[in-house]
């Protein structure tokens, strides 16, 4: 998420509020006002200003803000920490928002883009406040981490709160499924009866040893048991496959394995790997140019498509994807994280292409080139 900094005044514990650049009259305590006025109004959750700190204000203020306040979107929801860090928890202009549950994880996937941060084991209070502020019209929300299930029953509370406060918002829970090996935990999530909950679980290979090598833990059969337990309770389950040097060869076999063993899945997502976090440290072992697995990916996707399984491809550039698969590629990278490179300006498919992660720009396929118009 986007992070900014400033000097905090009177902020002793975390503040979560919805951004407004105009004064509001009701429920001020839920709002964070952006203003460069000298006069600091009272009653808001916090004020953000580019101005230097002044001694008089008793309100919670974040001064010396390092970004021009005019750039902000009304409706964004922001978290301000006592240390002066402000992060955008909810981007009102984005379709890809998520609740960050914890940064702790019980796996250490060799290509994980998210490094584990020492703090932030449990952000439940932050997330509950966030849920109460999110616009009810929001179409979808992700639940991610680290590994969300590590907070145990608090996760159930969070999902329950989403059901109550955002009844029409579709939730996607990203989890390795290991904790759902416990059938009671699986049953508890089911008993919340959230109408639009999808549980996406990563599966790296059809072979336990390969999956475990990638996941950094002996989780293969636990994950599978977790999937089966969730399926026993009729939960909607998706499978995600991040493609790397270690597992690309058996992609078609993995597709077959998914169909044979989890035919009830709602969808399967194939993802190009990111190159930050642990992935950056393990590039030797994990990086493969997407161009080099074009045929394996095509074979895997066609297999599942023939079997009438819904498929998506995330994070892939169209020029290194077989044209047959373009219809499955989604623009999965949020606007503010997405970028293109020089060659893309001449590409006829640029508007349809999901582009690159800004963070991946230094390491991408060597075969990026504009696609000529087929007229």
């Amino acid at each position, binding site marked *: 998420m986007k992070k900014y900094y400033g000097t905090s005044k009177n902020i002793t514990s975390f503040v979560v509020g919805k951004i407004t650049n105009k004064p509001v009259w009701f429920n001020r305590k839920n709002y964070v006002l952006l203003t460069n006025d000298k006069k600091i109004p009272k009653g808001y959750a916090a004020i953000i200003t580019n101005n230097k700190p002044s001694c008089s204000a008793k309100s919670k203020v974040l001064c010396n803000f390092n970004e021009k306040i005019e750039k902000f979107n009304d409706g964004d929801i922001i978290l301000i920490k006592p240390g002066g860090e402000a992060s955008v928890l909810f981007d009102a202009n984005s379709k890809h928002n998520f609740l960050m549950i914890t940064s702790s994880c019980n796996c250490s996937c060799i290509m994980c883009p998210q490094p584990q941060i020492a703090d932030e084991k449990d952000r439940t209070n932050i997330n509950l406040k966030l849920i109460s502020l999110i616009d009810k019209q929001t179409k979808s929300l992700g639940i991610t981490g680290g590994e969300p299930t590590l907070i145990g029953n608090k996760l159930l509370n969070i999902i329950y709160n989403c059901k109550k406060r955002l009844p029409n918002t579709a939730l996607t829970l990203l989890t390795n499924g290991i904790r759902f090996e416990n059938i009671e935990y699986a049953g508890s999530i089911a008993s919340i009866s959230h109408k639009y909950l999808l549980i996406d679980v990563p599966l790296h290979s*059809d*072979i*336990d*040893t390969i999956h475990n090598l990638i996941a950094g833990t002996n989780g*293969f*059969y636990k994950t*599978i*048991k977790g999937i*089966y337990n969730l399926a026993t309770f009729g939960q909607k389950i998706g499978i995600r496959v991040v493609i790397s040097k270690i597992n690309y060869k*058996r992609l078609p*076999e993995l597709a*077959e*394995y998914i*169909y*044979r*063993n989890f*035919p009830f899945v709602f969808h399967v997502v194939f993802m190009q790997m990111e190159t930050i976090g642990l992935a950056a440290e393990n590039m030797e072992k994990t990086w493969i140019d997407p161009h080099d697995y074009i045929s394996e990916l095509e074979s895997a996707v*066609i297999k599942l*498509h*023939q*079997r*009438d399984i*819904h498929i998506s491809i995330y994070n892939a550039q169209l020029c290194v994807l077989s044209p047959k698969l373009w*219809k*499955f590629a989604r623009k999965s990278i949020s606007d503010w994280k997405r970028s293109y490179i020089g060659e893309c300006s001449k590409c006829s498919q640029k508007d349809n292409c999901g582009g690159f992660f800004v963070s991946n720009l230094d390491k991408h396929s060597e075969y990026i080139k504009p696609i000529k118009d087929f007229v």
Partner: protein
Amino acid sequence: MNYQLFPFKFETLNEDEIFLSNEAGEFCFISNNEFQQLINHDLSSDSETYLDLKAKQIIAESCVNDVIDMMAVKLRTKKSFLDNFTALHMVVPTLRCNSNCVYCQVSRKNIDSKNFDMSKATAKKIINMIFKSPSPSIKIEFQGGEPLLNFNMVKYIIEQAEGKNTFKKRNLEFVICSNLSLMTEDMLKYLKKHNVYISTSLDGSSFLHNKNRPLQGGQDSYHTLIEKINLCRNHLGHDHVSALMTTSMYNLHNLKEVVDEYIKQNFNAIFLRSLNPYGFAKENNIDYDVDKFVENYKETLDYVIQVNMDGYYIVEGFATILLSRILTPFATGFVDMQFPAGAGIGGAIYDYNGNVYVSDEGRMLASMGDEKFLMGNVHSTSYDELFNSNFLKSLIRTSCLECTAACVQCAFSPYCGFDPVRNYSEQGNIIGHIPSSNLCRKNKQVIKYVLELIKKNDKNINEVFWSWITRKPPQRRSL
């Protein structure tokens, strides 16, 4: 190598190839060498074959219990057609018939013999009996004779069933199996109102069809049928009318023409059925050597596949059942060919006089004087005495795969099934000697051929196969 063998069956396909399968229907083709290595625990863990066998749960390393759990789920899924008990209920409103089909297995009665009509009292008892089945889906299929000769009874049964279903709340479906010669617009209006499906028989072009299925009284069977098919489609919709065919000596060598006829008549499904060697078929000398059927079937299957590749969508029914069993993890309920047999537990037939038989073939045997497969009569036998009888239980017991001498070892058994009535008819006892059974010979050869086609891994053939399995022509699949 340190690995545990999981249960599998094997069969030599040809000189250098062995076919392996397991109870979940997973399969693998491996060379003789690899097979020897596999069973001697010498198969290298680096080889692709090793990995494939692991993924298919034919071998496992340390996590044996976890793999057992997965296999248990898959086995339960494959046998889930047993979950709900009897779903198919065939009802015979009359034995009277106006057809003269050469292979009739029923000993049809004259169109005037009204004493072969079902009575209302019998119908009521039958409906009660049907709804005693625990199945959440009930399909009532009208057979005969020619059901349209007693359309009043068809209506009565539909209405009784719908009435009963207001309380029972099952997923209720009606099908009428008819030669359609007596179909009228009034009948169709009624059938439309009650969402009844039509199943008819089309055995080929004019010459072939008339040879197999002449009408009594000399009317042109084929032209009447085509006219009525279109009439039915106009009233009920294209999807509500299906056809199947039966292979006799007359059309055995012309199956491709039969397929052409189905295309001409705009059908999108055909079932290339071999002859049941019962009833009039035996008397009329129209049966044929099983190897000849297989030879013609294979050629025709190739032809149907090619027709699909050329752009016309038409599903072959028998191959699709096999393909679903081989390529998907799902169960397919096909009462004629499953382990255990579908006799009684999958489907049953209620004759005009209230007699209940385990299958249509069982009814035919009775009409020829052998009541071996009579379960009882709705007037005098309770549901428990019919469906929980020692007779039915012992019949089913002997048809379980684990109790059959040759089938239990056969690598094609996950895709095949047991037919005690056919065994009895062919060989004189319900267990039979499968290695010399014609039905086994046919099924095995056809299964082998389908596997050969799968093994080719031809992407066009695969595309066709999956369009059949999913019942979706390629362009209609979801994104």
